[in-house]
């Protein structure tokens, strides 16, 4: 299977990455080379194989149902969370206007 220039542009738009015409010039053949190479996986008979879900079998744990069980990941961290925001206003993340 190979992808067209339009398909790569569509994927880039889904991934929210602007690509200009020059980017597409080199990305399309690289993309197709990689896809052609990974397609050898189709040779493998996997009809009776389950896809891996966890590399080391584990049960997902539930944390204790208490507030701030771990202070590092608990609440009350507004200022720390906003500290690296490109734009923070009035205790919130600032973004361009979304609704007219």
């Amino acid at each position: 299977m190979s992808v067209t220039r339009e398909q790569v542009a569509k994927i880039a738009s889904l991934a929210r990455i602007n690509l200009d015409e020059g980017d597409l010039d080199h990305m399309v053949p690289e993309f197709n080379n990689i896809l052609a190479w990974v397609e050898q996986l189709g040779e493998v008979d996997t009809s009776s194989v389950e896809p891996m879900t966890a590399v080391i079998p584990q049960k997902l744990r539930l944390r204790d149902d208490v507030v701030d069980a771990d202070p590092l990941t608990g609440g009350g961290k507004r200022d720390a969370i906003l500290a690296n925001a490109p734009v923070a206003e009035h205790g919130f993340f600032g973004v361009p206007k979304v609704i007219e």
Partner: protein
Amino acid sequence: MTDFTQLGIKAIRDGVANGDFTAVEVAEAFNAAVADAAELNAFIVTTPDYALEAAKKVDADRAAGKQLGSMAGVPIGMKDLFATRGVQTSAASHILEGFKPEYESTVSQKLWDAGAGMLGKLNLDQFAMGSSNETSYFGNVANPWKARGSNATLAPGGSSGGSSAAVAARIAPAATGTDTGGSIRQPAAFTGITGIKPTYGRCSRWGIVAFASSLDQAGPMARSVEDCAIMLEAMSGFDPKDSTSLDMDVPAWAASLDANLKGKTVGIPKEYRMDGTDEEILKSWDDGIAWLKDAGADVVEVSLPHTKYALPAYYIVAPAEASSNLARYDGVRYGLRDLPDGAGLQDMYAATRAAGFGDEVKRRILIGTYVLSAGFYDAYYTQAMKVRTLIQKDFEAAFEQCDVILAPTTPTAAFALGENVDDPLAMYLNDVFAVPASLAGLPAMSVPAGLNKDGLPLGLQLIGPAFDEQAVLNAGLAIEQRAGFTAKPEKWW
């Protein structure tokens, strides 16, 4: 006077504990070595004050008769993928340039708690995506080794290329690395040092910038097997903040080191004898077999039939996870924001990500987005995860016949910077021997085996069953004792 920069973890820790020298003297020596090695570009940020402060605390604790930690007085380099409070954590990307975490990763905190200090944040491939450290936004790292009779600058491997270069150049006695598909082992092999990736889940992923979460594992890079064992113990342990952290005690790997392999069986995977592998790599593999026999081990051939499919499966699984993990970089919560005039929110996302990610990162996000998209998911992603199951089953079957597997770490010695940069597939093939163990979540280590005819180091890889880091370390020690690898890069920086 002792040249402290020639000492490893154990020698520094024991020397400080015995009062032979102070932690401050050691920190000052390494700070000076780091400052003198700017040409290697191993560090993105240096933190001499942090190293000094940690050393002063160790010296004060010793004077006060307090118990010292297992890494007390050892200044280390921290791969710039670990969140360090108040110190830029960039993942070698433009999009995270200037990001100063408000918190500390679990692994780095454990190392500081054990008495280590931080020399600085080490360069790497951007978001740990690469095998030569050429995708960093902050420039290439130079391998301290050069081929005999050549002045070409060689790649230090990747993605932990700053880590490998720093340890090989003796500007850090040890460094942290992370390994998603070989990123500890391949750079260790390229620079003549030792590095181990433990079983998936041993080291907490909390506070490590995520690349492919089902594969990412932290591990130590140092100059001896024993130093790796000491540092891995300090880094490992259950962490409730990581949902895939192993809830198991950390074994006393260093105290249990034993190079006597009598009664142990070493497996040699026949599928790793691939066409195109360097003759000298194959010879070093034969040397490794002879050394392990000499240590008392029996050697058997084993089969890992799906080996050739590991790399293509990896280049579906890892980009798929990356495309999801890297969706968080959107110019809203941290890092770069690119807001063109009059742009709306969606335009801001796309402009920010175009400006903030390098080409290799974009390539992997796009591949990942494609293989996860409706209509292609089963053909690519599900098939890759089925192949991953088969690769794991191959290892399970092999470990019914042997205790540890010996293989080369890489198909070639270090190559020159720029050599593979225009051919992503050729670059990916570097990790052909490293990726299978990553897909199966197994502990694996690279130890130096010797020098090739150009005077460049070659590494041997040991792979163990899940949770059996000890088997890997013991076989690694047996090789280390027999390889007698004492070569060092000549200082040119």
